C-alpha cells in the first residue's frame, strides 16, 4: 500500500512539474484567443501587408482590423509595394504555390517579428475573454520591415477593458486580475468559518 501511495505521489509531482497538454485544454481552463492589430498600417498606403504562416494562414491581406490565426502557427507579416502585387492572383493559387511565392518573391519584405496564435489558458471562471496585441510599424523600406509591440488590450466578460503598454519587447504585460469583494467572501471567509467549526469540534472532544 505504501508503495502505491509513494508511486502515485511521485507520478502526481512529475505531472505537476511538467504540465504538457499540447493542443488539449487543461481541465477547468479556457483558452484566451490572441488577436493582433497594426496601429499605423494606414500610414503606408503604398504597401500591401500580408500575414503568412505555417501551417496557416496561407496568406491574409491585412488592414487596420484585428486578425488572428491558428494557435500553433508561426506567422510573419510581409510588406509588398502595391505596384508589385495583385491579391486576386494569389487567391487563385494552391497552398504549395503560395508557399513558393513567399519563399522566392524578392520584392517581399519580411518583418522582424514572429507572431504566435495563443495568448494563454486561464481558469474557466476568469473574467478575461480576449487579448489583442497592438503592433506598430517602426520603419519600412525596400529591405526591412520593423514592427514593434506597442500595447496589450484585454477584454473582460463584464465589458471592461485594460490597456497596458509594453515595457520591453520580450515580456507581454499581464492583465491585472484581482478578486472582487464577493469573491474574497467566498474564498477566504467560508474556509475560515469552517476551520473555526473544526477547531471547536476537536477542542470539545478533549
Amino acid at each position, binding site marked *: 500500500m505504501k508503495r502505491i501511495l509513494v508511486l*502515485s*505521489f511521485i507520478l502526481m509531482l512529475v505531472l505537476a512539474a511538467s504540465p504538457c497538454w499540447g493542443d488539449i485544454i487543461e481541465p477547468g481552463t479556457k483558452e484566451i484567443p490572441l488577436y493582433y492589430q497594426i496601429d499605423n498600417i494606414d500610414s503606408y498606403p503604398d504597401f500591401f501587408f500580408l500575414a503568412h504562416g505555417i501551417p496557416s494562414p496561407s496568406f491574409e491581406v491585412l488592414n487596420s482590423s484585428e486578425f488572428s490565426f491558428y494557435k500553433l502557427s508561426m506567422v510573419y507579416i510581409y510588406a509588398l509595394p502595391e505596384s508589385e502585387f495583385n491579391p486576386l492572383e494569389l487567391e487563385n493559387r494552391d497552398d504549395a504555390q503560395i508557399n513558393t511565392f513567399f519563399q522566392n518573391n524578392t520584392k517581399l519584405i519580411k518583418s522582424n517579428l514572429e507572431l504566435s496564435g495563443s495568448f494563454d489558458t486561464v481558469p*474557466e471562471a476568469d473574467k478575461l475573454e480576449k487579448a489583442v496585441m497592438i503592433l506598430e510599424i517602426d520603419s519600412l523600406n525596400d529591405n526591412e520591415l520593423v514592427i514593434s509591440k506597442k500595447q496589450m488590450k484585454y477584454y473582460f466578460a463584464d465589458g471592461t477593458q485594460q490597456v497596458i503598454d509594453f515595457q520591453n519587447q520580450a515580456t507581454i504585460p499581464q492583465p491585472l486580475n484581482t478578486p472582487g469583494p464577493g*469573491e474574497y467572501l467566498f474564498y477566504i471567509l*467560508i474556509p475560515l468559518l469552517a476551520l473555526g467549526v*473544526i477547531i471547536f469540534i476537536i477542542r470539545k472532544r478533549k
Partner: protein
Amino acid sequence: MPNLLLFFLTIALEFILIQFMIKSPLKKIFLYIILINCITWPLANFLYFYFIKNWVMVEVMVFIGEGFLIKQLFEIKYPRAFLISFILNAVTSITGYLIHLIDIWIYLR
C-alpha cells in the same frame, strides 16, 4: 466565481465514497465532509485562479490538506487518512476531468 455545482458534486461523491472506508454515523460523516470541503474547495479555487495556474499541483495540495483534516476529524492514523484522501481526490479529479471532456464533446457536436 467557480461553478458551485461542482462543489456540491464533490461533497456528494466524497460522502458516498468515504462511507465505504470509515465506520461512523452518517450525519457525522456528512458534516465533516462539508466542513473539509468548505476549507479546501474555495482555497483550491482561489490558489488556482489567482496564484498557482497548475491544476495537478493544486490537487496535490488539496490531497495533503484533506489528509490532515480527515485524520483530525475522524480520529484515524495518518497513513489511513492520506490513503482515504488520495482515493477521494483521485475520484473527484477524474470525475471533474470527465465532465470537462463531456463539455468539450457537447461543444464540438
